[in-house]
């Protein structure tokens, strides 16, 4: 068993970056995720593993440091909260276009604009539909506990290097700020420069005599070349959709009604399921772990099993609900409930919405 600690989600994310063998973290502070860089600075990971931690002059600088270091085959991470993540979108599109691996975390706060510092889930569209320009996707992991904040850093790096794309850990102010028990995984050693050179034939590690020139770019001026590159990307995304779907079905076996949620909303909805079951209502929770790829096929299976309605519970005015509708293709009723702008819904509010919009509606 690993080391047990009581940690904030943000601290667990930071500690996990060190333990996952990251080479560098580049970031810029913003509430409610400032503990990430705070923890990393205090922990002095350069003394533990040689990992570099740098506070950049801005979010834009940080994401471009990620782009450069990822190009050299390094394991790199950044994090921010909503307005800061918006600033990073140009860099992320370049990273996706140049097919480089990186992990980044968004501890979402209420928007739009500078918004508020309270929790929100209103960055779902930005996260899953491609926040920057161009036809790209990224894997989106949605931790619902402090434990998953740690575990998904390790998983995120594995996926990022397997598919060479950005992996987003999408949490929010609740998961970032709360403390829970966390079992930390053991230290993964950082790769040496030699190991990077041997393992990643694409990494720009310095050209040696007699070796091919390695080029990292997202630019292809000839349209047909760019189309071919896009087709390659799309094939990769298809493989991801077929192989990397992750979710957790809680009390779904006999359920007539399903709450669909991720992250902190899934925790709240789990309480709603307990309350509903006490009232004799057959309610289950379908907790999304990957938001992209979306578990559409598995959701259709629930329809075949006789589910009468789905309530999408998210702290937004209704974003994920569109993917639920596309997934179930009209086989059952779908409605949305959520507070937003920094207001967190309560288990009671979710139960009321379920009774009014799905069961009684």
């Amino acid at each position, binding site marked *: 068993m690993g080391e047990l600690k*009581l940690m904030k989600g943000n601290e667990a994310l930071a500690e996990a970056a060190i333990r996952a063998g990251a080479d560098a973290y580049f970031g810029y502070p913003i509430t*409610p995720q400032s503990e990430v860089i705070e923890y990393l600075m205090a922990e002095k990971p350069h003394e533990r593993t040689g990992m570099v931690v740098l506070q950049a002059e801005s979010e834009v600088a940080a994401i471009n440091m990620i782009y450069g270091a990822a190009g050299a085959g390094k394991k790199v991470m950044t994090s921010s909260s909503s307005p800061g993540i918006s600033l990073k979108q140009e860099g992320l599109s370049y990273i996706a276009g140049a097919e480089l691996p990186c992990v980044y975390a968004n501890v979402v706060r209420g928007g739009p604009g500078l918004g508020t510092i*309270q929790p929100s889930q209103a960055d779902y569209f930005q996260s899953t539909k491609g926040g920057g320009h161009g036809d790209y996707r990224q894997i989106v992991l949605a931790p619902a506990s402090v434990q998953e904040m740690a575990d998904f850093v390790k998983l995120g790096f594995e996926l990022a290097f397997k598919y060479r794309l950005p992996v987003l850990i999408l949490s929010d102010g609740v998961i970032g700020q*709360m403390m*829970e*028990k966390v079992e930390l995984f053991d230290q993964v050693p950082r790769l040496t420069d030699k190991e990077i050179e041997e393992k990643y034939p694409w990494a720009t590690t310095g050209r040696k005599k007699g070796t091919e020139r390695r080029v990292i770019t997202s630019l292809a001026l000839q349209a047909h070349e760019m189309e071919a590159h896009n087709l390659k990307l799309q094939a990769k995304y298809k493989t991801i959709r077929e192989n990397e779907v992750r979710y957790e079905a809680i009390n779904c076996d006999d359920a007539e009604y399903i709450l669909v949620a991720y992250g902190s909303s899934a*925790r709240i909805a*789990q309480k709603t399921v307990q309350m509903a079951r006490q009232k004799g209502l057959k309610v289950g929770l379908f907790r999304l772990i990957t938001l992209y790829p979306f578990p559409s096929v598995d959701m259709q299976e629930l329809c075949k099993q006789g589910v009468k309605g789905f309530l999408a519970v998210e702290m937004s005015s209704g974003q994920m609900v569109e993917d639920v509708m596309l997934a179930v293709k009209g086989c059952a009723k779908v409605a949305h409930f959520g507070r937003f702008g920094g207001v*967190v819904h309560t*288990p009671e509010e979710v139960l009321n919405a379920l009774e009014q919009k799905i069961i009684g509606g």
Partner: protein
Amino acid sequence: MTEELIIAGFGGQGVLSMGKILAYSGIMQDQEVSWMPSYGPEMRGGTANVTVIVSDERISSPILTIFDTAIILNQQSMDKFEKSVRPGGTLIYDPNGITRHPERTDINIYQIEGARLASEMGNTKIFNMVVLGAYLKVNPIVKLENVIKGLKNSLPARYHKLIPLNEDAINTGMKNVVDMHILN
């Protein structure tokens, strides 16, 4: 066993750290715990509260509106959270600064003069540990030895000399909690 608790008072009273010590003690006896502070633009001198859940099972929502127990340490929090205790639940409060005492008759109510006792012990900083002692007397969800173990594991070594003082404060709280309204 699941205990859903809110601790509410002024910023600086040690509300958040009291919750943290309780959560750490839960971990020491292999329980699941969650600690969710209210966070927002209000900080110094403002109200602070934290929801702590200690359970034998996986914890669902870390955010709640109804609690098994409320520990209330100022009037604003009394106004806000007296009504949030579930019927049959528990309310513990420090009368210091309270102008309107709790009125509910469907819950158990206890008083602890934490501020007075801590200042009599010569260190107002241990106020929160006196209150924690009162709570653990009323509801012994974690053993005292696990609180001490939690303190040892969570405090840097240079503060370990303060552990006996904290233990005294907890014991003082345990001895001085007063029954105000007890359900049959």
